[in-house]
């Protein structure tokens, strides 16, 4: 029961939020940011929780999506019907290329290699002088939908993010339960067993990377739109670490945990940064403690005891 109730409540709360005191500009911005990062975290949770592939370079896919928006914007193209497929396709392609190499290894190698590829994307973005280099790039306008400036409206943007988040979440949950996900989950538990029944895990894992990459690209487009500004820091490895933390904070066992984790992360960051300029000094130890003592994650707290 709760497996369905928790995500349902979560989405209902996000849908009602604008009318429950979160209707102000700043609060909505914050929520949009949480939903966008939550979307990327759901994709990452598919990789980490579903396939057992710990990627420490996931922010790069967000960055590729965001920089695709920038590249099109610099050429005067802001139509969503073009921006979205190009950005998502670019991020998926990036995930395909880096995944194809990274998946030749496993475990600790995989972590290091994804981190290295993420860093490669970061430095490449920093060297793009035409798009502002280290200083970043300010978008002229948000992405248009069918020639209209619909996304300029905060409320519309809120519900666009929510709708896409729900779509991504439902797709990933279905994929994990379907045949595809069964192979992934089995390969996480025991790759030899999977090979010995006749599956080569590689193409399944690679496709999982591509799906997560495409979702990352989508969140990159939304993030660029939310801030109307794109900088290499989108791709920094700290951002990848934060995404991973959101997934773990929410709990690896379920995909909605990733959304809970993202919400908790963004709110915690907001709250702490109001308390002190050096909020990371509080946040770092909090992270260490949560790893050492809080293994089930937020979703674990809300889940029935027997699991």
């Amino acid at each position, binding site marked *: 029961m709760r497996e369905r109730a928790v995500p349902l409540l979560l989405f209902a709360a996000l849908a009602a939020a604008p009318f429950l005191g979160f209707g102000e500009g700043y609060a909505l911005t914050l929520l949009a940011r949480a939903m966008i990062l939550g979307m990327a975290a759901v994709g990452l949770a598919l990789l980490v929780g579903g396939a057992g592939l710990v990627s420490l370079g996931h922010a790069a896919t967000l960055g590729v999506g965001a920089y695709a928006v920038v590249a099109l914007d610099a050429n005067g193209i802001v139509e969503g019907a073009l921006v979205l497929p190009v950005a998502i396709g670019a991020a998926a392609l990036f995930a395909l290329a880096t995944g194809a190499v990274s998946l030749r290894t496993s475990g600790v190698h995989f972590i290091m290699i994804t981190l290295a590829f993420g860093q490669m994307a970061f430095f490449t973005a920093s060297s793009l002088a035409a798009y502002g280099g280290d200083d970043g790039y300010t978008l002229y306008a948000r992405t248009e939908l069918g020639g209209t400036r619909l996304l300029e409206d905060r409320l519309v943007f809120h519900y666009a993010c929510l709708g896409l988040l729900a779509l991504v979440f439902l797709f990933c949950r279905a994929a994990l339960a379907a045949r595809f996900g069964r192979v992934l989950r089995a390969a996480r538990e025991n790759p030899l067993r999977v090979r010995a029944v006749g599956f080569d895990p590689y193409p399944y894992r690679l496709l999982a990377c591509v799906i997560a990459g495409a979702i990352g690209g989508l969140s990159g487009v939304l993030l660029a739109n939310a801030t109307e500004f794109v900088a290499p820091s989108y791709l920094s490895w700290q951002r990848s670490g934060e995404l991973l933390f959101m997934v773990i904070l929410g709990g690896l066992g379920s995909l909605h945990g990733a959304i809970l984790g993202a919400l908790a992360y963004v709110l915690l960051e907001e709250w702490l940064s109001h308390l002190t300029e050096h909020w990371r000094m509080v946040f770092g130890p909090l992270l260490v403690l949560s*790893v050492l003592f809080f293994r089930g994650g937020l979703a674990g707290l809300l889940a029935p005891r027997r699991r």
Partner: protein
Amino acid sequence: MSAELLLVQALNGLQFGVLLFLVAAGLTLVFGVMDFINLAHGVQYMLGAYFGATLAAATGSFWLGLLLALPAALAAGLALELLVFRHLYGRDHLAQVLATFGVILFLNEGVKLAWGAAPLQMPVPPLLEGGVALMPGLQYPVYRLAILAAGLATALLLWVLVDRTRAGMLVRAGATHPDIVAALGVDIRRLFLLVFAFGAMLAGFAGAMAAPVLSVEPGMGDAPLILAFVVIVIGGIGSIRGAFVASLLVGLMDTLGRAALPDLLRLFLAPSPARQAGAAIASMLVYILMAAVLAVRPAGLFPARAG
């Protein structure tokens, strides 16, 4: 590019390479012996630089500063091992990644709190000031040559320690057959602590040595950390020899690529796009090298663990 410039850049690359090696050596041993992925190894490098700069300023002597920075870095490494890392040895790599990521957040911010966000300077000692003439009309800073020499000497010392002493033999055996070493009745915990503290000191030494030629600032350890990962992936986990070869390779490739590629591309492109594309490709070069090595040898050039 002239031959003189090429020589200078090659020396810069080698110097960068030996510094990388000092960071990577500790990291690869910690991986190999303990199967522990320590993202916080880069902050050891940063702490070394801060300790060196501060202690040199306090004592008024570069040499005393460098000498005192070593036990300080060692103590910092021991403290981290006792407080955080030893609770993570039995955990999965994901937990290790996140907890050590938390340590980075804390220490990067802590350094900012303690020393301020502005970069520190550490003066070059009078003895090593000035340059030597490599060729008529070509001056090269003595201090950079000294870094190169000190790095190579440390590498030699490390090789003797690991290859010729009992402790070194245990470390090598631990990297290849940890279960057997444990079965021999060796106190693995103490061996871990030893390797760990030693690796921390090496990274700290690299940081302190690099301090006069770099700006000492928060987060300065992140970039070397990720390059050290690349080095380890190329060289093979747990292999000192692999780390040495790969460090020099990465150092040379990165430095020469940045210096030469824009010039090289000018043969085909107009100056401005050549500069841009050159910078972008140069920043990807070491990662492309890593991908190429992995494509041919997934376990790295010198895999320590056979099979």
